[in-house]
């Protein structure tokens, strides 16, 4: 007997939530499993505002989160991990585990994996930009944590910075690190954050050191032009190679490539635009559901640009950054597409039975 009414969705971030809503709207039951205590995923947990529109995350996503919690068709299990899966489309027997190690086996017809990404850890490479050495070298994520408290400060002094430098492509586009891909969103997030810093500190000098600005589509004028024209953010082509402490400040060393000259400038605060890597959950789900990872380490899909959500395993779909670096827009689109394909697969199965 095939199970043709339940879709398991792993991960309740923007992609998983959208998949859950869509499956429910299409009339199937949803089992939504989230390893964390809170749903909403990485943006909801770590970002004060969203890119590109600078909406406060709570205002933008709060109603979606509450809608998921109150949707009668969605069986939400937080603090729950998927630890095992057996069977095929129409009859996946999936073992769930609670923090107290209690295990339950559920039967579902199809699966959407939406386990997302994790931020690149600059400490993984030897003293990369001195992130673990200098208090005033922080990441985009650390900056968001400050924005949530309505401030941006130099951690070493507690004072507002007079000068801030963003360094792009940290952990991305780097053969030596093994991450050969662009993480897509960091150019936009750095630009968004530079606007927020200038709103709080209009007199601060803010620089973004970049290799190429990847501001595709509307992000170009919505954040890039806006940052430069309205907020006087300074974009310098050429990446920073090293950060060294000099006096109480940080000396950034790099090249201004359009001028062809070395740069050695003192900064108060350095923000590393860390990229995306597959999350631990994404790596685990690859093993549990036997979905191969593509060459960059993310979950493999089969249709190239024409099918972004089907994996090589029938009945298992993927949404969002589990399949590669994604912004929220693409993640949510994939959530809907994965849900539609999952429900379609179950409907076909019901007809065959």
């Amino acid at each position: 007997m095939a199970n043709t009414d339940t879709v398991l969705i792993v991960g309740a971030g923007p992609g998983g939530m959208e998949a859950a809503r869509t499956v429910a709207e299409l009339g199937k039951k949803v089992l939504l499993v989230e390893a964390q205590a809170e749903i909403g995923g990485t943006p909801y947990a770590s970002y004060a505002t969203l890119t590109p529109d600078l909406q406060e995350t709570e205002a933008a996503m709060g109603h979606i989160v509450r809608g998921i919690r109150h949707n009668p068709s969605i069986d939400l299990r937080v603090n729950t991990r998927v630890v095992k899966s057996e069977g095929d489309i129409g009859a996946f027997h999936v073992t769930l585990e609670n923090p107290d190690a209690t295990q339950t086996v559920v039967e579902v017809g199809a699966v959407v994996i939406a386990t997302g990404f994790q931020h690149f850890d600059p400490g993984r490479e030897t003293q990369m930009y001195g992130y673990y050495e200098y208090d005033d070298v922080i990441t985009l994520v650390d900056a968001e944590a400050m924005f949530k408290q309505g401030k941006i400060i130099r951690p070493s002094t507690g004072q507002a910075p007079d000068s801030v430098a963003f360094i792009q492509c940290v952990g991305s586009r780097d053969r030596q690190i093994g991450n050969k891909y662009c993480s897509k969103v960091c150019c936009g997030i750095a630009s968004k954050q530079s606007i927020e810093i200038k709103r709080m500190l209009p007199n601060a000098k803010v620089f973004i050191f970049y290799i190429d600005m990847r501001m595709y589509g509307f992000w170009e004028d919505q954040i890039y032009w806006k940052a430069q024209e309205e907020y006087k953010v300074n974009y310098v082509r050429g990446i920073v190679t090293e950060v060294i402490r000099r006096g109480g400040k940080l000396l950034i060393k790099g090249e201004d490539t359009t001028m062809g000259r070395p740069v050695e400038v003192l900064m108060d605060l350095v923000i590393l635009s860390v990229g995306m890597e597959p999350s631990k959950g994404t790596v685990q789900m690859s093993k549990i559901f036997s979905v191969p990872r593509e060459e960059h380490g993310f979950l493999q899909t089969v249709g190239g640009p024409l099918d972004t959500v089907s994996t090589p395993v029938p009945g298992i779909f993927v949404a969002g950054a589990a399949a590669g670096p994604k912004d929220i827009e693409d993640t949510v689109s994939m959530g809907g597409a994965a849900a539609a394909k999952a429900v379609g697969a179950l409907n076909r199965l019901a007809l065959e039975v």
Partner: protein
Amino acid sequence: MQKAKAIELEIAVVDGVELNGTWNRMFEPRVISEYDLSVLEEITNIPGAESLGYCYQCGKCTAVCPVDSVGDYSPRKIFRRTQLGISLLDSPDLWLCTTCRNCLRVCPKEVNMIDIMPAVREQAVLEGKAPAELLTAFENTARYGNPIGESARKRADWTKTAGVPVPVMSQKKAPVDVLWFVECYPAYHPRGKEASAALARIFAALGVDFGILGTEEKCAGDSQRMAGERGLFEMLAEHNIKMLSKYRFNEIVVTDPHAYNAFLHEYPKLGGEWPVRHYTQFLAEKLAGVNFVKGIKKRITFHDPCYLGRHNGEYEAPRSLLRALPDVELVEMGHCKQTSYCCGGGGGGMWLDGFTRDYASERLSERRVKEAVEYGAEILAVSCPYEVPRFEDAVKSTGHDGQIQVMDIAELMAYCMGLNEGLAIS
């Protein structure tokens, strides 16, 4: 700042009219009207130079390139200039790289100048485009077995001043534990010979069973290889391998990090494979048995040789020796270990000082000496035979004579062991 360049001739005759000074002023054309892509194709088609075409212009290399800090050169710029149609084969850029490997350390695309430089230089040498002074060093090496042009017969003469027996393998006629490969500058340069004598005395005091090849030794050739003379390198390697193969020993100990690199990575490809250690690695292991009888109450800093550190990952052995010397205060310069600056001698730089002078605001060795002084060092300790002469010249030319001394670690160690009374530590 790059500005349009005005060209004024003293006198220019236009249609029979003499125009002078500002009246004939013209500007160099600045518009790029063509990208001659065949040049980039030609360069990246040279086996070994493929990765030049991978550059995506991030500029990370520029900030750590020692040559760019004194001039206008970096791997990123080389790619752009080549893309523009300026051939590396004809450009002075080709001879400025010291193969220090700092760019490769930070390059996200793994553009590998350590492969590119010798490959393209080899082509340039074949086309007769190498600077004259480099060719002189090559010719000396081919003729005398050393780039300095000293007599091959005098290669073991330094041993007379060692004060201890330095067995030469051809006379000893017995196996030894350690075959000491001395190299050229330690055998011929006055300051190199002093360090060699000190090392011989340390070996004797520690009861090391060692021997040297003496006049049977020729230059290991690694820098000639990096400078574009692979053929010469192979000739030297074959000779040295043949000589070494005549004798029985357990390991090779080298004075020169460039020889270390050759024995570690290149000689095995040509059939010469022996365990090899740099002398600092060899001595670091013997530290427990060393009897120090006096100290050096000085602040010492250490310059990492590119070919011991970045190329082969050894940062600790020389430091453990310096830390063991009584009373020494070891200070690190800002550029140290992986980020160490370069003395300018590697990759043929040792024989290109006249050539590079026209393209650099100062020598790399001068910049390094200034850094050592900035960090308050009274002694700049080194462990590569290129460095004592280079840094001593730089101490003088930067006006720091009497303020900082340059010493090989072997000299300092022998001094503290009471084996180097002649060493004047001021």
